[in-house]
């Protein structure tokens, strides 16, 4: 009844290549979604603070809706449900490309952007209102004041929660296996079902996720230290 460890399965050969291709897809999925969710989060945060009621209400509804429904449901929605609501031409284009990947990016981006928007908004609220007054006094419009003066400061203050959101996104990307994206978890499952070496396969996946977490945290902390320092003296 002894389990026979066979690390060779995941350190070379065909199955190793499967895992590597899974890592590649996970990294691509995470990076694309991190970039897009950050940009979308900025936009939603600004809309949430708009002077115009309808814009503010829309952003508020968006936040509540996407933060309070499970990511898995959202992923299924974009994968199975979007056929019904998107125009035919868009669907054709998506199917021609990598539809699973696109649906996963959309789900991860929208879901995470809702959390990021809230983090950025609380960052903005901690910037003294005099900063906005100084910017407006120079002749910047509200939006451009946000862009050049307020958001750059708010984002710097938001680095720690942003690290969290990016880590969550990277880990959540494993849910994309459920809609058939051949990312790391998907490949680890494949290796397991072909070789019955589940322990090795999932250990390897775990290590990769851990390594990616360290890289994200390291990069963000470095950034924080290099650019936050000058304004910390305040």
């Amino acid at each position, binding site marked *: 009844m002894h389990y026979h460890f066979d690390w060779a399965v995941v350190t070379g050969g065909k199955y190793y290549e499967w895992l590597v291709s899974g890592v590649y897809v996970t990294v691509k999925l995470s990076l694309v979604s991190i970039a897009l969710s950050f940009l979308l989060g900025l936009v939603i945060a600004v809309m949430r603070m708009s002077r115009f009621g309808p814009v503010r209400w829309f952003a508020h509804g968006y936040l509540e809706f996407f933060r309070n429904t499970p990511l898995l449901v959202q992923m299924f929605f974009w994968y199975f449900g979007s056929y019904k609501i998107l125009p035919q031409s868009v669907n054709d284009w998506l199917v021609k490309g990598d539809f699973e990947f696109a649906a996963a990016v959309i789900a991860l981006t929208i879901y995470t952007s809702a959390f990021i928007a809230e983090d950025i908004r609380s960052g903005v609220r901690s910037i003294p209102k*005099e*900063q906005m*007054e*100084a*910017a*407006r*006094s*120079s*002749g*910047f*419009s509200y939006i*451009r004041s946000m862009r*050049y*003066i307020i958001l*750059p*400061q708010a984002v*710097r203050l938001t680095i720690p929660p942003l690290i969290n959101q990016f880590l969550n996104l990277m880990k959540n990307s494993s849910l994309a296996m459920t809609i058939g994206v051949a990312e790391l978890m998907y490949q680890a499952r494949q290796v397991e079902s072909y070789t019955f070496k589940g322990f090795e396969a999932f250990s390897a996946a775990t290590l990769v996720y851990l390594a990616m977490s360290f890289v994200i945290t390291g990069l963000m902390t470095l950034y924080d230290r290099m*650019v936050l320092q*000058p*304004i*910390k*003296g*305040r």
Partner: protein
Amino acid sequence: MIRFEGVHKWFGPLHVLNNINLRVKPGEVVVVCGPSGSGKSTLIRTINDLEPINEGKLVVAGMDLSDRKTDINKLRAEIGFVFQQFNLYPHLTVLKNITLAPIKIRKLDRKTAEEQAMALLERVGLAEKRNAHPSQLSGGQQQRVAIARGLAMKPKIMLFDEPTSALDPEMIGEVLQVMKDLAVSGMTMMVVTHEMGFAREVSHRVVFMDHGTVLEEAEPEEFFKNPQHDRAQQFLKQILSPMH
């Protein structure tokens, strides 16, 4: 350059500006003083529409602030505003604090903007601080950078709201000196301050405010020697007393 005609403003029930009539001609330096809470900040902030007026007419640099069609951002680009608390952008270096608006709003190329910023830094005596961040500067230095930032837009008017009130006494002089040079150079200025030395030396007119109204408006000589209103007399006694 600046014309108030029957301007009123309320904060809820508080009548913070009550029938203001004032004119500032090009090149004029006007000092506004008065007790705390009398509406000086509100008055000066209406000039660049940081505080919108409720009634009356206000024309600044040929633009009518009571007219909705006036492009407020364009107006503000023509007016430098210096705050009591400096309000430099903490995430940018001194040089970038000064060049941001000229590059983004005036569409200057970076090189021209930086040359111009360096000339201004020379003028306020801080050229060697160009790469420092605001948090690395003293209050007096920050305020001089803030003045340079305002001047970088080549404004038609410079407004100052108690520019030396947040400074340690030993730094007040350096900021006042920059302001005096500016006044002598012919800039149109409106300055809320209790620095009566500045008012006496370089201002053309002193405006005394109390409870949202302009109680007195006179040449400095006249105002200091012979204040008409009781309130102004009291105020001057307080502000000029060595015990203060």
